[in-house]
């Protein structure tokens, strides 16, 4: 029985925040060992991914091909480490596999590969394709007559610079009653890309307004406010139109030396940076654990 289906046992906001920190530490460790990959792009999405995998998504790690599961598509495939961390923490594959990231002979590829890694629904990595792929999945769900099954597509600001994303946005509305309504697009709008800020390189401006203009239900939230993320994600279930959640985020979130700073895209942490980042995240984890215990004790009385 998928744990996330039971509202009684669904983790609360504080616990989700703790899991986000766990996933962040996993990412730092993976990248420090791999010496390659996109750490800051993974960290900006950690809160969103934690909310999805620990609460919102209906999935069953014991049965990755469960027909009734929701689907998660990582359109920003370069943030693969955060997806791998979430999958490993749920038992789709052993945690130890995370240390094989980007290594020859291991299954964790630089970008998600559905043919190699359990739990990866579709291969991504070339920006702009994920929303279209997600729409195809959503259309198939309607053809199969499934009830209340959704597709969550996590996109980057770079994804939204690709024209194909807007072809998909148009088609999702056109096909809303044939499956498009099942789509939730989540934009991890961290405002930093390889060559600079999005404002410098190619300003995409009002992302929420753009999705709204394409006919989507569209909201903008703080992508590090766990309660807001959960509320926004849960509000999209049962919608009659595709829904976009534009998350204002900070690249490198949770690691002070990286957060919101240009120059880390696609660059792994040095050993010193990794140690510093892990100390910072573990301190955060300890305070979150303490807070969670206080909350639980409070609930008991």
């Amino acid at each position, binding site marked *: 029985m998928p744990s996330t289906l039971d509202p009684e046992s669904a983790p609360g906001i504080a616990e989700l925040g703790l899991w986000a920190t766990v996933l962040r530490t996993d990412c730092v460790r993976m990248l420090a060992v791999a010496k390659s990959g996109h750490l800051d792009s993974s960290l900006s999405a950690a809160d969103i991914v934690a909310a999805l995998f620990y609460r919102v998504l209906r999935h069953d790690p014991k049965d990755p091909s469960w027909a009734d599961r929701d*689907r998660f*598509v990582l359109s920003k495939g370069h943030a693969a480490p955060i997806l791998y961390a979430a999958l490993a923490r749920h038992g789709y594959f052993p945690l130890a596999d995370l240390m094989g990231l980007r290594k020859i002979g291991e299954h964790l590829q630089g970008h998600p*590969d*559905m*043919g190699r890694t359990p739990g990866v*629904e*579709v*291969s*991504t*990595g*070339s920006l*702009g*394709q*994920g929303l*279209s*792929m*997600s*729409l*195809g*999945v*959503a*259309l*198939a*769900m309607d*053809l*199969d007559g499934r009830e209340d099954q959704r597709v969550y597509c996590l996109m980057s600001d770079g994804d939204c610079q690709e*024209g*194909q994303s807007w*072809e*998909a946005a*148009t*088609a999702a509305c*056109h*096909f809303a009653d*044939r499956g498009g309504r099942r789509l939730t697009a989540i934009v991890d709008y961290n405002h930093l890309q390889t060559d600079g800020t999005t404002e410098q390189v190619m300003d995409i401006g009002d992302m929420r307004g753009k999705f709204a203009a394409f006919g989507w239900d569209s909201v903008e939230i703080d992508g590090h406010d766990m309660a807001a993320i959960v509320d926004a994600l849960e509000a999209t279930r049962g919608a009659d139109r595709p829904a976009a959640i534009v998350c204002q985020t900070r690249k490198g979130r949770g690691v002070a030396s990286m957060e919101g700073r240009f120059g880390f895209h696609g660059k792994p942490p040095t050993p010193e940076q990794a140690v510093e980042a892990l100390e910072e995240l573990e301190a955060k984890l300890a305070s979150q654990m303490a807070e969670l215990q206080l909350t639980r004790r409070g609930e008991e009385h």
Partner: protein
Amino acid sequence: MAGSGEPSATRNAYGAALLELGRDHAEVVALDADLSVSTQSAKFGAEFPDRFFNVGAAEANMMSIACGLAATGKRPYCSTFAIFATGRAYDQVRLGIAHNELPVRIAASHGGVSLGEDGASHQMIEDIALMRAMPRMQVIVPADYNQAYRVTLDSYTDDAPQYLRFGRPATPVVYDEVPAEIGDGADVLREGSDVSLIACGHMVWRALEAADRLQSEDGVSAEVVNVCVIKPIDSQTVLDSIAKTGVAVTAEEHRIVGGLSDAVRQVAAERHPVPIFAVGMGDEFGVSGTGEACMEHFGLTARGIADRAREALLLKPIVSHPPLHRPDWI
């Protein structure tokens, strides 16, 4: 199964066979990008509107949607013109379909210059090369209506990604009826001993006509091989033919780079090198004109094939040699 004795376009066979597949298999879905009348997928759309998705002029979107559908258990057939199926949507086909090894069929109509009047922007002459180079992608170019019908029907039973190339103009039939099977993908349509004419698609009936000309005008016995599956190529049939004749001409409505000619030359170079001349498009784009005028303009005709065969035959006594490769030696 409705075969044709009259000249008919291979795209018409696709439309008819797709409809048959739709009736037999609920998981077959079809997608098009605002060209469904030209590609003939509209027939499927009329009978199965719930399983038909016209995405408008957005071919990249179509290919990635097909990826999502296939990843969720459907068997998508995507049709558009060859230029857009390959050139415009290459990366989408590459990552979403080929890399994932999903059972998506890319039905590309209007391949080559024989589409005529629309000219260079629409005349796709490097699609076979692009799709041959793509890992895990099969490349299939049927010769006539009847073979196109078989190719489309059989595509359902194969799990590999497939690129199917169809044409716009009515094409004389070379198979009297819908063949029972595609086999390994290459058929010897006419036996001969002096030169092999190895052709695909619209050039197959022209190669047969060229063989007639060579026989009547020069007394040359030409063997004609139709290579329908260009990747993976049936190297045994090709080797058997060139080992017998010692010299070959390939013919395709495509650039002579990367297509059938290179596929045949690769097989020959490794296993049995003989002179192989190519009929096809050089380092040039198409032009406007009627389809047949375009074919004439670029020498993609029976006469063009026969002339190349004559050139090749001049070389034969100089560079040809006894067969290095014989089936009974293996």
